[in-house]
Structures are given as C-alpha cells and as structure tokens.
C-alpha cells in the first residue's frame, strides 16, 4: 500500500491504495470520480482517457503514483477547465447513443484542440482513432468537434 497524492480538477486528493494502482482505478475507487470509464484495461479503447498536463492520456495503464504534481483533468472537471464548448457541441449534435465511451471521446477531443486548435479532418481522425464508439457515433463526434472549434474550441 502507498499514500498517493493526485491533483484532479484543481483539487489535491490524498489516497491510500496499492503501489501499482492505475490512475483509472484510483479515480474511480478512491477519488470517487466515475465519469472516467473502464473499457479494456489495456489502453486500446480510449474510454478511460483523461488529460494529464493537457495531454490526452489513457488512465487504465498509467500508474497513479507516477503522476506527481501533474494536473489531471477528468470529464467532471472539463467544463471549468476550458472544455465547455465541446460538451455543448456534443449536446447540440445529440451525439451519444449509449453514452459510455463519450467521456473519453470528449477528453481526447479536448487534448487534440489544446495542441492543435484548428485540426484538419485527417488530424481529427488520427487524434481520435484510439477512442472506440461501439454504437458508431463517429460522424456526430466529428461534427461536434468542428462545431466546438467554431464556438471557441478549448480554452487552454
């Protein structure tokens, strides 16, 4: 067991957990933020994506104790951290079907727009390729990203 300090959505959490606990389970079981989802556990589906220092990161294989002081933003904190336009665009396009993967999709889009505010279609596809939507909402996700860009994108 280890005492791990995490800075999530601007707040510092001190948790007691396994040495090797991945960020995903630290967030879900210890911090109590369940918006970040488990999908595959091997960083292949993107459901667990969070921002670490502004970079879209798969939390299911990221050891929590490796993060140190890094700023972690989850879907719960995205609106207050510049991502509201994305969430609104997702609503505007009525993007989700089942909705389970969408937090990861939105966070990946936020990571993309932070580093590249005006991506081409191909850049969007490349950046989003790690996020699976089993319901097949890809057309709407792309449309929502483009709408969000028009409405101000992600405020860094």
């Amino acid at each position, binding site marked *: *067991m280890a005492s791990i300090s995490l800075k999530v959505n601007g707040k510092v959490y001190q948790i007691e*957990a*396994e040495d090797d*606990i*991945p960020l995903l*389970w630290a967030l*879900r*079981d*210890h911090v*109590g*933020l*369940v*918006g*970040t*989802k*488990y*999908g*595959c*556990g*091997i960083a*292949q*589906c993107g*459901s667990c994506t969070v921002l670490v220092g502004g970079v879209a990161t798969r939390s299911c294989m990221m050891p929590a104790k490796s993060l140190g002081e890094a700023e972690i933003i*989850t*879907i*719960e904190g995205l*609106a207050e951290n510049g991502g509201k336009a994305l*969430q609104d665009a*997702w*609503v505007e396009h*009525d*993007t*989700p*079907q*089942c*909705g*389970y*993967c*969408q*937090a990861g999709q*939105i966070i990946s889009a936020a990571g993309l727009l932070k580093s590249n505010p005006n991506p081409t*279609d191909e850049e*969007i*596809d*490349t950046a*989003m*390729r*790690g*996020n*699976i*939507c*089993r*319901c*097949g*909402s*890809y*057309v*709407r*996700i*792309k449309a929502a990203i483009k709408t969000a860009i028009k409405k101000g994108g992600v405020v860094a």
Partner: protein
Amino acid sequence: MTKINLSRRGFIKVTGLAGSGLVLGFHWAGCTPVRPAEAAKVVLEPNAYIKILSDGMVTLMSPVPEIGQGIKTAIPMIIAEELDVSWDNVIIEQAPLAPDLYVRQSAGGSQAVRQLWTTVRTAGAAGRRMLMEAAAREWKVPVAELTTSEGIINHGKSGNSIGYGDIASKANDIEVPEEVTLKDPGNFKIIGTSKKNVDVRDIVEGKPLFGMDMKKEGTVIAMITHPPAFGMKPKSVDDSAARAIPGIKDVFTITVFPEDIETRWSGNNAFPELVVVTGESTWNVMKAKKALKIEWETVTPGENTEDHMKQMESQISGKMTAPDRIDGDPKAAFRKAVKVIERTYSAPFLPHNTMEPMNFYAHVTGDKIELEGPTQTPQRLRDITAQIMGIPEENITVNILRAGGGFGRRLYGHYGVEAAVISKRINAPVHLIYTREDDMTQGTYRPDYRVRYKAGIDANNNLVALTVSGTGTNGGPVASNRFPAGALDHYAAKNYSLKSNISTGAWRAPRSNFIAGAEQSFLDEVAEACGKNPMDFRLELLERAKNDPVGEKNDYDPDRFIALLNLIKEKCEWGNKVEGVHRGISAYYCHNSYIAQVIDIEMKDNKPVIKKAWCAVDCGIVINLDGAKNQVEGGIMDGIGHALYGNITFKDGVVDQKNFDTYRLIRHGEGPEAVETYFIDNDIDPTGLGEPALPPVAGALANALYRATGKRLYHQPYILELEGREINLG
C-alpha cells in the same frame, strides 16, 4: 381518430398518494438547466406512466431499459403527445421492473415502440381526459366543450383556463375513463420532431449513470474467472497467491446454473461453474484474479474455426431435402436455365463488445433480493434468479440502469444471477464486474454462418429460379418467406443447424445481420449476369411480387419496398454517374421495418475509401426524428465495421481474440464521412429502428467494393478477402 376502450387494457389509477414523496434528481427532458429549489409535490397519478406535479411539471415514467436505442426519450415523447404537455415541462424517470404496472419491460427485437405504442398513447390520453373531467366539473360545463394545449385546459365559451398542476388535486376521485380518443397523427406536435436524448447533458458531464458507476455503502467487488476454453470446467484452484494480495476477502468456486435449469436467456452460461474472487477494490480483485492458479478439465472437446467451416460447408453442399419452403419446381427450372450462378457466403462468430462490460449489483438479505444494473430483460433476470435462489419473484426488485450498450448481449442476464449467488454466499452486497477479457471470451456470440445461393437465368435474361440453403451454429440464418420469395416461380429455401459447445445468442438483428448482406450481394451479382441495373432489377422483382405474388406466406409488403427504393433512388440520384464514385445498393426488410442503403466508395492510393452512406427508411410513424437518424447512422457504422473487421476464431475451444488489441472494431475515419437518412412519410403505426438499419449495409458495402475494386466479396470479415488472406477450405 382512434377510440380505445380502456377496460380491456387494465389501466389502474395509482392510489395512495397521500404523503407521496418529493420528486428529486430526475432528468429534464427539455434540457432545461435548473430545477426550482423547492421540489413540487406529486398531486395526481392517473396511471403508472404519469405523475402530475403541483407546479404543472409532469413526470413521465420510461418503463423500457435504455441501451443506447433512445427509448428513454421516445416512449415519454409518445405519452407527452397524448397527455398534451409541453416537452419543456416533462421530467423523465426510469421505472424499475414492475410487471403489474407496465407492459413488456424489455429491450429486444426492436419491438419496444411497436408494442408499447397503443398502450402508452392510451395512458397519456387517459390522463388528459381525467384532468379535463375535473375541470369540467369545477366549471360546471360539459367536458366536450374543453380543449387542451401544452398542459393547459381551456374553455372557449367562458374564457376559463387552468393548468394541469392546478386542477390535478381535484381529479383524484375522477374514475379512469372507459374510453379515450387518441390524436389524429396529423395533429401530432411532439411525435415526429427531434428531441435530444434525455440523458445527454449528464453523459457529457460524466455523471454516474451506468451500472459500473454505482457505489453503495459496504459493497464488495467480485470478479469471476471462467474456463479458457469452451467445453472446460475448473478442476482445482490454488488461491494462495491471490489471497496474499491486500484487500482480498475470499476466493471460491460457484455453480450458478444446475443442469436441469432452463438454459435460455438469463439461465444461460456456457460456463456454469466459475471461480470467484471478492475484495475491497476493483484493482485488488483484478490483481488477485490474475494470481489464481487454476487447473481445468475438459468435459466436451474444444472446437476449431476451420472445422466449423468445413462442417457447415458439408451441410449446405448436399442435395436439398425437405425444404422449409418450395415454390414451383426449381430443379426443372435450373435444367432449362441458360445460366446458373452458385455462390457461397460466410461470416464468423461475433462478440457483442458493449463498451460497458457485463456487471451487476446484487444484495441478498434473507428471503429478499435487490438487483440493480444494465439488463435488456429485467423480468427474465428476476424470474430465473427466483428459480435459482428459491426466493419468490415478488421479493426480488430489479432497478434498471442505463446500459453502456446492449446489441442483444444483455438479453442474457446470467451475470445478474451470478451476482446474486455470490452475494448470498458472502452475505454482503456485491458488485460483480467482468473484465473485457471475461466479456469477450464468454460466448453468447453471433453464430458463425454459411449459406449457398443458386440462381437460374433464362434466355431472356430473367431470373427464373433461386434456391438458398444456410446453416449456422445453433440455427441457420435463412428467412424463407422474405424477399425474393414471392417474386419467383421457382424457389426453395432450407435452414440447417450446427451443434456446438460454443454459446451463441441474439446479436443486433439476429440472422438478418448476416443473411441480408449475403442475399443482397448475390442479387447484385445475378443482376449483373442478367445485364440489368441492380436498382431496376430489384424493382422488377418487387413489381412481380406485387402484381402476381407466388405463395401466400410472403412476409413483406412489396408496395412499401418499392416506395422505399424509389425514395433512395431519387435522393442519391441513382444513375447519375459521378466520376470516381463507386456505388453499391442494398435493401432489406426485418424487425417490421424496411431499409434501403447506398454506399459510395472512392479509390485513394489504390485503396477503397468509404465516402458516404444513403439510407431510406420505412418504419411507419417516426417518433424522434433525430434520434431515429442517430440509430440509422450507428447501424450503418456498426454494420460496416463488423462486415469488414469483426472476427472471433477458435483453436481447441480457446478464443483467439480476447481484447481490443486483437479484436478489431471500426474506428474514427474508417466509416462513411457522411450519412444521409430519409424517412417514408406515412401514418402506419411505428415499428422498430434499433436493429433494421444494420443488416443490409454489408450488402451495399460489398457491392460498392466490387465496383471499386473489381472483386466480389463472399466471406466476412471482408478485410481478409480484400487483402487476399481468407481461409482456404480446400
């Protein structure tokens, strides 16, 4: 206008409202941002679907499990329409399982809207009528002089008006009307418009909605390990390393389903015996699960993909005896034919891969059980749990949560029963969670299929005879009375079935999800052999089925099919050739709805790129226009993805693909860039849309790929054939 007699529908007014609780925490249908701080009281429950609140807001119950098909939005839209309230004043609440109050609380077969249509319209209309009767009594005027509009009752002559919330308290002694009049579809104000998914705001903000997200005090995390191969069971378990992991509570083996249990639906798991680990947190339990050393024993032999394909090939290769349907004399017709085309199509097992893996909460206390989680069939789950646990059904509650995908997988609620068995064993509330690997290797797969078509063409280039024989694990895919049956003088169809210890289940549009693509690819090839345009060829056959149908059991309406093809033909400007665009057409009828699709492909760097999909739909009255389009877009993406990439293979009973590193799902940028969907405008009672948009797309895709690459595709996943990597059975 339709008059409905309520006495036959068993509507009961919900009584006992005194002291009924405050209404908190529900989802706002109209995405109204803030709810007033002081919660309004429920003042009238005309029936189990409706609660009228003192502030004029209305709570509508959504009885059907939401799995991504949009039913939690669609059913309340229908109730709100007939109740005549503004969508902005509606609050939606997911109903728990209550078979005494609701009809068919199940998500399956694309049947929810179709089968609840009249019932929930009647519920809304009955509520409206009771409020009107209360107002008529109050104002001492005949009820016939009253009208309603968006939650307000008006009396034109006196100019009186009153809101539902204000009159509701005076309607408690109004009897449920014996008869109500339903709206004329021409007067619909909500049905046919676009309303956003009622949970969309919560979804994009990451609110806890799913079974995986629920945290209840004292809940123990449980995980299972099932055998690595179909046909195996656990022999012995060395749990010393697992137990040494901090936070682990227990390791034990359970047999959930005894041999004499009904093995369908929730009583069905190919692995009735499971090794269970319980502990304090998910990560600990995951680690302990990996640390188990289990010895397995073989009960029945493990199977191989290639053996399956060979066995199926031999089943459909023989002479067809005792066909399921025969018209005319196909044998004689083939002898007279100038050209005979024979083609074989196949597809592999597919896992459902809902993004939210199987999981369920159970708490057994004495002779009571609390169940909560994602399920498509809460009642079957309850009934089989009652049977297994020896506890009366009425002592079991099932709380239905939004499911992170269904696709048929959660028709099989074995994981809920397993949670209950574990809860009883450890005497604590349990959240059972399957890992992705547990989920993908558990079975309940879309069966593998193989089908052979044979067509005879006469000297005038007419299709005169067609036969089809098909097989699949635990049942063949052929629907013998569907098109082109009825359009041909000489026709025969036959289904075979292959026995296997690999478990199969309903997967989005069962059977149709394969046979539609095979049939529509074959008809395309036959059209070409006849020298006909594939669109005109289909229309000719449908004209024949309309004007001079063969047989009496044809289960499609040629008129609706023809109108559908004409709609897509017009919308996609069929026949208007665009340089570099290669088109494929497909059309299919299943789940009571008609779908036609066109796929446009362009070649880029010698590789096919799917540019666009067009879709025409006849599902009768459309409830939620944009929600319906979303289902169509998803069905197309899903159908393309699985036809191109989906593949579960076996070696000695062991599944080769265990997670998304080896199992390929369609990803961003791999499907069409745009989807255009058009609906036939009619007043036919609505039919389903969760499934029907998927099956035909494999045909449209294969036909477009043929025009783009010159290569006909017969065996899914198509990517192997496109890349020349298919399995050779020779």
